[in-house]
């Protein structure tokens, strides 16, 4: 049996009166890539935001039920939200490098921890960029603005930036939705490599991407978890009619 990292139990989320997630139950295993698919407004992104409590930023956000990450109830009273967000690194759909240099983007979160030792930072920068598959392309211009990178490079920079924080989980919210096929391929390659050291949750609009990289796939629809299983099973013998219909492109 694989080790469980995240447990979600009877979890619901509300924006004011609207229920955006309804009674979700699922586990995330360590060192797997869990793909989450589903049409727009199915609650996929909200689910990610709930895992690292970015939903706290939205006024009127409210939760019920439990999410346990590494044996800690993350909605409990003693949770250090900042530490939680470092543990569950997040990569957004639109790559948003901060308006700083490539180098400073990577060390941004590290510096917040008070680390300022130059050789150590240099090492973190190289290591993170290497893992994100970007080092070779940018090693000669680390101190130029990150905003000058191409879209695909920016997205890998955002992945590197998350890796620099040494998280245990990486959550990606449609990371390739704005990218060309080659950039997409590079990111998917990075994800397969990263799986060795990290647990990855990949929200994607592109069902084929889930089929390509995810070990298991969860299908969300209108705030509900319709099914979750081995990717192979979900794509070949889905147990729910709605999953089948979505995968066949009957709605989306």
């Amino acid at each position, binding site marked *: 049996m694989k080790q469980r990292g995240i447990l979600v139990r009877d979890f619901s989320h509300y924006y004011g009166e609207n229920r955006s997630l309804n009674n979700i139950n699922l586990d995330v295993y360590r060192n797997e890539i869990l793909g989450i698919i589903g049409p727009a407004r199915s609650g996929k992104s909200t689910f990610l935001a709930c895992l*690292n409590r*970015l939903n706290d*930023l939205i006024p009127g956000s409210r939760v019920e039920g439990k999410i346990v990450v590494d044996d800690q109830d993350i909605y409990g009273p003693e949770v250090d939200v*900042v*530490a939680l*967000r*470092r543990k569950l*690194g*997040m990569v*957004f759909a*639109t790559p*948003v490098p*901060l*308006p*700083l240099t490539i180098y400073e983007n990577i060390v*941004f*979160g590290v510096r*917040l*921890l008070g680390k300022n030792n130059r050789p150590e930072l240099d090492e973190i920068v190289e290591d993170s960029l290497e893992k994100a598959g970007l080092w070779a392309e940018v090693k000669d211009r680390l101190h130029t603005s990150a905003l000058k990178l191409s879209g695909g490079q920016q997205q890998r920079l*955002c992945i590197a*930036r*998350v890796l620099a*924080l040494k998280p245990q989980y990486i959550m990606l919210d449609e990371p390739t939705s704005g990218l060309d096929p080659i950039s997409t391929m590079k990111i998917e390659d990075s994800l397969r490599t990263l799986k060795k050291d990290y647990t990855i949750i990949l929200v994607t609009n592109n069902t084929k991407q889930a089929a390509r990289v995810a070990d298991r796939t969860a299908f969300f629809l209108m705030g509900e978890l319709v099914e979750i299983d081995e990717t192979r099973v979900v794509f070949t013998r889905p147990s729910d009619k709605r999953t089948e219909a979505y995968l066949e492109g009957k709605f989306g």
Partner: protein
Amino acid sequence: MTRLEKNDRLVRLGLLMIALSAISVLAIITLFIFEQGTPIMFRYGFKSFLLGQDWYPSEKSFGLLPMIVGSLMVTFGALIIGVPLGLASAIFLTEFSHRRLTRILKPVIELLAGIPSVVYGFIGLMFLVPFIRDNFGGPGLSVLAASLILGIMILPTVISIAIDSIRAVPDSYREGSIALGATRWQTVRMVVLPAARSGIIAGIILGMGRAIGETMAVIMVAGNAADIPGSILAPVRTLTSNIALEMAYASGEHREALFATGVILFIIIMILNTIANVTSTRQRKK
């Protein structure tokens, strides 16, 4: 040419004339000031104007240095007071306050800009000047009083431009920073303010232009002695005050020297405005 095309041309011509008339007013003012002010500067030499310390118009001594220093001191003082206050208010109103509170407070702050400067001067004279005299010494009419009043007067400019440029920073920057484990304040300090920097600087420079050009309120609280002030509690005379105080009775070379004061003021303000324009266009290009 059809009738519509003719109309179009007429409208264009009319608008062009109106636009030109606005610009020509500016041009005429500029020409007039320079025409009146520069001959005397050539006659006595720029150096004696810019560096002369004695302003005795009746004895043909036209040193403007005390007023130049006075204007700069008062303006700088206004910035020391107005910028931290203004920036703090802008950060609070954009990043930390409740949206509804901001909706009430922002117009109130902008209302500050609508109060006539003589009212500021009056309040300064009634409350601030005696307060300084009783608590810090000196005549009360001082660099400090003028700086405080001007610092408050530039607040609306600094605050509303800072608010606009902080709001222009995309939310995705904030989200990204917070997702990396930054707190709200760290996000503001390390991401939002640097991203909004050029807009904020433009706002400060516009506020500075306002401070250096303000006349009435300064005359009322500054004491207006034409000497280089020895401390912030000493009275001071600015370039604008110099013109406003003496123009009514000046004639001959005295009058020309006041225009020369205007020329120098004009040049200082042009420099500030140019800097403001350059920094704000750089912001837009990003």
